């Protein structure tokens, strides 16, 4: 049974923005060091050879190290995750959502056209489809209540992509941050990264939070202010201020993933 609270105890966006007067100055010095740590670590694992196909690290690669069975990676779990991601995109621009499931499916189709996961959605029988629709509606209610209204002046951007090639293209890091708020032109750290998951939060979610922060730092050469993950299953939210230690831990997560993929080759 899914129960929802009448009002959210906390606005996600408010929590992410925090007290502006306490924000640190932007850190533009750490990105180079982190990149070197990654390059050196990858060289120790792979050496100088050139790979025909690169090793790809995503947030899902970091999860797999931890769990052998992850319900979120089942087909309905993946579809649900994608649909909640689409609804977050609509919420980020202040769109009203009338029918969570139908709206999410319509935006998903418009975005990707046809793919394997959409075919699997189309192949669901009526019962499974109705179950999924109810599930998505419940997750949407939890997300909407927690998120509140996102002011336009906080410059929300959704589904922000990042790609980094390392070790001459032997390793490619790929990431998509569900929601990013704050300006990168400020003198103080302002960027907050928000990730939504339809699973309960676990260690994998923490790795994802760190990975998002690392990828943002590598991409823009500026450290973000905070990284956060929200579970639309439980309404739970974890927020971490980004510092060098957090990013260095993410470098280790990435190197562990590269090591696992390399030894499995």
């Amino acid at each position, binding site marked *: 049974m899914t129960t929802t609270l009448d009002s959210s105890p906390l606005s996600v966006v408010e929590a992410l923005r925090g007290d502006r007067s306490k924000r640190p100055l932007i850190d*533009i010095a750490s990105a180079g060091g982190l990149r070197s740590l990654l390059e050196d670590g990858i060289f120790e694992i792979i050496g100088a050879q050139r790979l025909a196909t690169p090793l790809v690290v995503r947030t899902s690669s970091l999860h797999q190290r931890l769990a052998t069975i992850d319900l979120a990676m089942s087909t309905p779990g993946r579809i649900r995750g994608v649909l909640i991601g*689409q609804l977050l*995109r*609509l919420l*980020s*621009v*202040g*769109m009203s*959502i*009338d029918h969570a499931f*139908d*709206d*999410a499916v*319509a*935006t998903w189709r*418009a*975005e990707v*056209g046809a793919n394997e996961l959409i075919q699997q959605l189309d192949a669901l029988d009526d019962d499974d489809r109705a179950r999924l629709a109810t599930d998505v509606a419940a997750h949407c209610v939890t997300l909407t209540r927690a998120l509140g209204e996102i002011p*336009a*002046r906080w*410059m*929300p*951007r*959704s*589904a*922000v*992509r*990042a*790609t*980094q*090639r390392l070790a001459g293209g032997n390793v490619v890091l790929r990431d998509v941050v569900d929601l990013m708020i704050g*300006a*990168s*032109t400020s003198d103080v750290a302002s960027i907050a990264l928000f990730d939504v998951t339809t699973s309960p939060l676990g260690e994998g979610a923490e790795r994802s939070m760190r990975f998002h922060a690392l990828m943002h730092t*590598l*991409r*823009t*050469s500026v450290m973000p202010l905070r990284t956060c993950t929200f579970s639309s299953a439980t309404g739970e939210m974890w927020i971490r201020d980004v510092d060098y230690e957090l990013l260095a831990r993410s470098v280790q997560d990435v190197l562990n993933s590269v090591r696992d993929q390399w030894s499995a080759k």
Partner: protein
Amino acid sequence: MHRRLTRSDLNELVSAAPAAPVQLLDAHRASLTTRFRAVSVPGHRRLDAWSVERAGRSSNVFRWSPATARRVLGNASLRRLATQPASVRDAVRDELGDQMLRAASGYSRSGSLSHWLASAPHPVIGLVTAEAVNWATQLQEIAEWLDATWEVPTSDAYYDVASARTTLRARRDLVVRTSESRTIVRVRSGSPGKSAGPGLRADLTIEALADHDGVAPVRYIGLWPEAGVCLSVDGTMSDLRSGARDLVRTAVAQRRRGTLLAA
């Protein structure tokens, strides 16, 4: 030149561009026309940096989608913001409103963005808004990084090669002007491939051809914000020639492919 996409690196690329621009003459245009006319095609052909980067391989048939609409709407919104300060989201909404009004008042043709938007369902409009907000916010941040004065051009650069049924198009997102020269900034999704340089040179050449006096930009800067890198080519005669050669080669490759398919 290959750099990380940071505020200081971008400003350095703009400020350290060559001072004097190169000019294409009528003889250059005539020479290019002769070469394109030698590579005749039954219909009309359109070439751009993307076709050069793909060596003339045809892409999928164009269709409007939130991803293809974002740049048009995002750039128009940023242009709007330059004259009417508002939030990016409001500027995008106003731009969407204008587009739909155009369709409702019968000023849009079938297949246009206005026409597509007018028939798109409500949630898809939401996704289009989200994509355009992403694009406009990203471009606004890049523009605000620039120390020099910038403007969002009203359109891409187009050049019709006379009597060769060929249209060339160069993408441009920001123009930085001084009294004597201009630098162009172009933003792309994804990360640059091995052929990103030739693509930039093709844009440089088309931009120079599209200029009434044939004046080339002093530098063409390509930004890939998703990868956090930028590349640039200088507007030298050698780069312009190289860009023109790549465009003609692309036309040849396209025709060869067309002939093979027909056979």
